[in-house]
């Protein structure tokens, strides 16, 4: 399979590989895919008090384009608000990495990983709000 130079670059020099404490309330973790399908992505985001993603880490079991797709999104989500991060679409990822048609599912998985990480962070915040008192809960849920 002929990969683009960008895929090979991310594959050979993956950005932001690592793990964060998934029990930290400021960290959102999204794990998507399945080993039997040949790819599992785990994306973690650290969100600051202003609601900005200040750090992101990933680990991926999968083919070269799955690794590249997840490496790329860790770069893209950094500095974004949660809402901005949620606007990243698989088509943007596929376009940036020039993924061949059979590898589009890798970019879909990367988009799913962002959504899962954001949702995990929000549900943790929601749970924290509930424990503090019911009033602010509605504001969180409205997102």
């Amino acid at each position, binding site marked *: *399979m002929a*990969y683009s130079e960008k895929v090979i670059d991310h*594959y050979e020099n*993956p950005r932001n*590989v690592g*793990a964060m404490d998934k029990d930290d309330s400021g960290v959102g973790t999204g*794990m*998507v*895919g*399945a*080993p*039997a*399908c*040949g*790819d*599992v*992505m*785990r994306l973690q985001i650290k969100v600051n008090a202003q609601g900005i993603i200040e750090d992101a880490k990933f*680990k*991926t*079991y*999968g*083919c*070269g384009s*799955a*690794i590249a797709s997840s490496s790329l999104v860790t770069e893209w989500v950094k500095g974004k608000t949660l809402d901005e991060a949620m606007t990243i679409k698989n088509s943007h990822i596929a376009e940036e990495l020039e993924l061949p*048609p*059979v590898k589009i*599912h890798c970019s*879909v*998985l990367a988009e*799913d990983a962002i959504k899962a990480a954001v949702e995990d962070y929000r549900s943790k915040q929601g749970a924290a709000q509930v424990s503090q008192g019911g009033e602010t809960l509605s504001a969180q849920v409205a997102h």
Partner: protein
Amino acid sequence: MSSSQIIELESKKPLLIDPDRPIYLDYQATTPVDPQVLEQMLPYLTHDFGNAASRSHAYGWTAEKAVDKARQQVADAIHADPREIVWTSGATESTNLALKGAAHFYSGKGKHIITLRTEHKATLDTCRQLEREGFEVTYLEVQEDGLVDLKAFEAAIRPDTIIASVLFVNNEIGVIQPMAEIGRILRAHKVLFHVDAAQALGKVPVDVEAIQADMMSLSGHKMYGPKGIGALYVRRKPRVRVEAQVHGGGHERGMRSGTLPTHQIVGMGAAAELAVQLMDSDARRIGKLRDRLLKGIQDRVEETYINGSMEHRVPHNLNISFAFVEGESLIMALKEIAVSSGSACTSASLEPSYVLRALGKSDELAHSSIRFGIGRFTTEAEIDATIELIAGKVGKLRELSPLWEMHLEGIDLNSIQWAAH
């Protein structure tokens, strides 16, 4: 041919050594033509270019003589009579001719065929075609080690079974089926026995009498001969009949028409003779390299799984799964080595190797398998470099793998509800 290659040819050195290319460990996919074989082929492309079917002049007689010699060489290699050898374009065509040809000829006797789930696609796809034509095919399961269960095999035989087809040496996992026992069972039940020996000749002793084969497919390019040439052995006593699949001139006693490619045939004959001559010394040397590779990998990398029996296996093959890394990324990481993977991840279906699935391997382990094919020109230095690369790259990919991290934390991956996608 450049002058430097001619010099190498004359010194009988392999043409492979090239530091700019990946280490070649895919000898079950194909082999280079042995320089000794090439040397014998070349005159038949230029000076001795005649058509073996030309009976009226010396050009034809020279070609015919060369074809006859090669036919004898191939027959000798499998303990057959030269009149039992039919030239084809390769083992795939041989298998098509054997299965379709015999099925069509004997369809009045019965419509049932037996084969194994781990056969080469040439057999499986031909059987699928025969099913479309109204034949019934039993695709037998194999055991965890890749070997057929003889009791299950015998039990699959029905009164209307006409042919059974078995791969002598498996191309993916190198396991050797119990051919003599299978042959005995089939002869007792009067079922024709087709043997796909494409991966066997030159690796294990092949004797059509010892295994009571009725038909046998052979390939040139798997044993250091040229591509585009193969042969089908068709037994004369008791006589086995196959209906021709290619018509036009009645060559090869009517079984396969078409002008004979003299140079290819000469190459296959020479390769077959050399393969038998070098079988023991090749196997000893290659076996040592395989053991060195296996030990090197096992010493340096944890969580590896060997696919297929180690006991009933040719030394030329090693098939290993590396848990917690994905096959295609591993192949990509191993770009300095030319190997095959059990992952068919390049297709949209993400279908892993059907051979490894038939052994009961999980999709993950099937995806992460690597086939190392060691051959006549593999060196110890290449094996050592391969061990280094494997250890380094598997380690790197596991650093990247969330599954490896979970494994180290003691999480059972089977306990997790994965979302299918």
